[in-house]
């Protein structure tokens, strides 16, 4: 494991922030469209949830993209605008497609966020048409931004750890669950609480579902790599033994998946049995915090493990 790490913290932060921002944007648009015509669905909070997601999406993806540019070799030696070469051409490279996708997403997400910007913005105001149209575009575009990073990593056979069709799915579910978690934790800080905790319940339910899907994706990702012979099997061993094993099992599996899933199950079960959803405020902060930390560690482990493993044999 002495190979050079070419993609370091900036790229990891980009994958994490862009995923979380895109996920928050998708969830925001979904809640906005779903909440219309059914005011009670989110305890009357659908607009405020959508607003949080819309307003955090652009800065998160924007800051992540800035990190991405910082890591470019051309930027490091002082060619600060060389990255614009990306937009002189379209190639079939996942990075080229992703760059254009980011531009379109940032445009749509900015218009979407602007429609929420006025302090008195509300459902049915002058911006409602734009907001609805942009929300409909946000869902596919945000999903594409979340998926493409996984496709980008998976497109290279020389990195067997990444070269898996499950990686984009894993990144998508991780993005969506960290997106919900970001909205949840900001709602706690804003001290926003809906009637009968209806909105909190809805967010927790969707988050729980997304974590389950993320667990399934991760399980299948690890399982299929393990069942392969040669390159993939050798690469997946990087998270079973060696320096990354404890980071993966404690950071991703325990903190990022098991802990939030079990805690959410603990507070969701009473409501399913006819009771009330009554998660204390501390828990409402701990659960999304664990998900966000886990989401970051997942990107860290994947990006590093891919680079310390390679093809087996010559």
């Amino acid at each position: 494991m002495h190979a050079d790490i070419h993609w370091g913290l900036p790229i990891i932060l980009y994958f994490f922030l862009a995923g979380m921002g895109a996920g928050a944007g998708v969830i925001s648009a979904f809640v906005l469209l779903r909440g219309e015509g059914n005011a009670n669905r989110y305890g009357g909070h659908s607009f405020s949830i959508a607003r949080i997601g819309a307003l955090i999406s652009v800065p998160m993806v924007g800051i992540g993209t800035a990190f991405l540019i910082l890591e470019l070799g051309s930027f490091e030696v002082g060619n600060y605008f060389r990255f614009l070469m990306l937009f002189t051409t379209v190639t079939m490279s996942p990075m080229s497609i992703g760059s254009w996708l980011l531009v379109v997403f940032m445009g749509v997400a900015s218009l979407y966020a602007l429609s929420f910007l006025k302090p008195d913005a509300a459902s049915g105001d002058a911006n409602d048409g734009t907001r609805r149209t942009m929300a409909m575009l946000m869902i596919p575009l945000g999903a594409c931004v979340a998926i493409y990073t996984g496709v980008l990593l998976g497109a290279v056979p020389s990195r067997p750890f990444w070269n898996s069709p499950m990686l984009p799915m894993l990144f998508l579910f991780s993005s969506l669950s960290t997106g919900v978690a970001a909205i949840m934790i900001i709602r706690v800080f804003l001290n926003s609480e809906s009637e009968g905790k209806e909105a909190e319940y809805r967010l927790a339910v969707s988050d729980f579902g997304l974590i389950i899907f993320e667990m399934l994706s991760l399980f299948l990702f690890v399982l299929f790599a393990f069942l392969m012979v040669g390159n993939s099997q050798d690469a997946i061993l990087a998270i079973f033994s060696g320096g990354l094993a404890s980071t993966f099992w404690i950071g991703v599996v325990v903190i990022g998946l098991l802990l939030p899933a079990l805690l959410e199950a603990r507070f969701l079960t009473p409501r399913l049995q006819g009771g009330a959803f009554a998660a204390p405020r501390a828990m409402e902060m701990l659960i999304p915090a664990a998900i966000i930390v886990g989401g970051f560690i997942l990107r860290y482990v994947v990006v590093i493990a891919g680079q310390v493993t390679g093809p087996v044999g010559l």
Partner: protein
Amino acid sequence: MPYDDSKVLRRDVLKGTAVAAAGAVAASTLPTNAVAATAANTVQYAMVIDARKCNGCHACSVACKTENNVPLGETRTWVEVIEKGEFPNVSRNFLPRLCNHCSEPDCVKVCPTGATYKREEDGIVTIDKDICIGCKYCVQACPYGARFINPISGTAEKCDFCLHRVKEGVVPSCVNTCQARARTFGDMNDPESDVAKLLATEAVTTLRTEVGTKPNVYYIGADHTDPKTDPDQYVRIETNRRQQERV
């Protein structure tokens, strides 16, 4: 092969390549080399390295660094030392490495700006450093670890078969300097070239064929031992690159 002075400066041989290629188009009845089955009518520069002749002197690495002003700590071509076995049954083999100028190069597929491309006229994979943004995607994608980021220009760099020399009809610097004459360079689609003859008559192998990149650097008598595929015996691979482990 016997020493042949014409291989040091093969201006004529290389210049004759274009004529030979044109002739091949006209006379399609020419026997097709089994190795050079793809795009037989175009020029594809290739290298055949006879690992049995290599004595690990690293002259190629040094010549390359001088010729191409390769920054400290990086190499465009390097020699791996493969030690294996238990005394008295031991071996120490040398394996010169460089860019394979693949026919299906993954680095070209992933390049977002088109800075890395495979030249249609001679099959050399090269980089336009005025377009490269240094995203390092190609460094990740190369299964042979042939690429690095030049710390001075901030762009991706690798062996380009000494394009500036080959254009002038001169063989690459490593081929020119190799004391053991282990390296042979030329157009593998020209049946009269030295590489085509070697490919037709010798048992050759390429590296990491399973990744599907169709490399164009061929080896005679190469030791493909890798510590990961031979966990039961003592194997030590030494490279002269900054990373101490084969990538």
